[in-house]
């Protein structure tokens, strides 16, 4: 439990800093911006109470918002993704996952984890970009922006996964 709180705190610090200081400035081909900070929410233990997950999502979203001057947009998108997370896990990975298990390719199986990641990221990004373009609508460009950003974010999440393999997770230690 303590171990898990510590892990989440470190994740928040590391991934929010990376997001705010580096990734927010990336604008690949004037199209795609990766939002790696959803990784924090993605890697919460399977059995996390929905209430805690939502509060954490709102908090991380608000932090990113305050740096990008988009009050509320990231918070709204994160809450939506966090809300849909448990049904998504039940749907894709079945219900027989231990509650302390942290979502990973080893726990879910490769295909299921990819689908889980894609589903989660897609939900977040689509919500985020739709809220953002309420002020300015340009459908085709919007679709390209969403697709590009989803690809970049997923790529970075898998990169983070590759580094993460060596760190013992809370249920092992």
């Amino acid at each position, binding site marked *: 439990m303590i171990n898990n709180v510590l892990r989440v705190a470190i994740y928040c610090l590391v991934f929010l800093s990376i997001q705010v200081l580096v990734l*927010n400035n990336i604008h690949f081909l004037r199209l795609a911006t990766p939002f790696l900070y959803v990784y924090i929410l993605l890697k919460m233990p399977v059995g996390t109470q929905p209430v805690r997950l939502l509060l954490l999502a709102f908090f991380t979203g608000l932090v990113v*918002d305050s740096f990008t001057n988009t*009050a509320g947009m990231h918070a*709204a998108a994160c809450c939506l993704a966090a809300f849909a997370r448990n049904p998504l896990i039940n749907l894709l990975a079945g219900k027989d996952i231990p509650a302390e298990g942290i979502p990973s390719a080893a726990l879910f199986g490769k295909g299921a984890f990819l689908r889980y990641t894609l589903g989660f990221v897609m939900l977040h990004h689509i919500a985020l970009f739709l809220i953002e373009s309420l002020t300015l609508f340009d459908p085709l460009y919007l679709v390209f922006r969403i697709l590009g950003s989803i690809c970049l974010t997923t790529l970075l999440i898998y990169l983070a996964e590759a580094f993460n393999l060596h760190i013992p997770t809370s249920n092992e230690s």
Partner: protein
Amino acid sequence: MRKLLDFIVGKRHWFLFLLLEVIAFALVYRNNAYQRNVMLSSANVVTGHLSSLSGSVMAYLNLRELNHELTERNGALEMEVLRLQDQLEVLAADTAAFHGYIPDTAHLSAFPYSFISAEVVSNSVSRLSNYITLNRGALDGVAQDMGVVSDRGVVGIVSTVSDHYAVVIPLLNPKSRLSCKLLRSRFFGTLAWDGRDVRFASLEELPRHVEFAEGDTVVTSGYSAVFPAGLMVGTVERLGKQDDNNFYALDIRLATDFATLSNVRVIRNYTQAEHRLIQQEASEND
């Protein structure tokens, strides 16, 4: 009753979800209504400090290019001084000087603008609504609705000010509207950004009989009391797409490179309040 309570406790994350979404959307809405809210913006002290930290690191990385730019600018100004000196000498030689004349300065109004130099601590070009944060605030004399320019051209208008930081709405924001004119033919229109390319903006509401050539200079019109007239904005790139048959729109290549922005000047206009007031009065009397 018990069942209802059980239901509510069991589904409490649903209610929390709805509550949080409502809060988030309220924030989005508020942000749109008042442009910015100071609490959750980079004018905030904590985020401001962090941004200025990363900004100071970035400033070092940009030094070489900046130096180059400054040298160039320096050279241009030196040429200007020389040219003016030359002119002065010619005129002085020409004029039969009469030292008994004391010019009447009472009717000559003072130049109403001054500037405050500032450094960019956070900047974005990648989003639809971009904002720039400066390290000068109300204590340094920056106030809302002041114009901001870089060495190369117009940057934007100050929207929110805290004690030590100010947030600028740059030209690269759909909320920004700037009155501009073509330097050669004096036709004026409104400069707006369509959210696509950070190098271009479009000059809209030009009459159909506008005369222009590619490469024509676009400058501020001076109608808004934010900027003095004649500040460089950009050059005409091509005829843009028109939404309306009665007006032309031109694509303008912006003079300011927003992606490498680091040093800017905030323009203070002493007559702005008066200008505002009389315009307001006129529209009220209407």
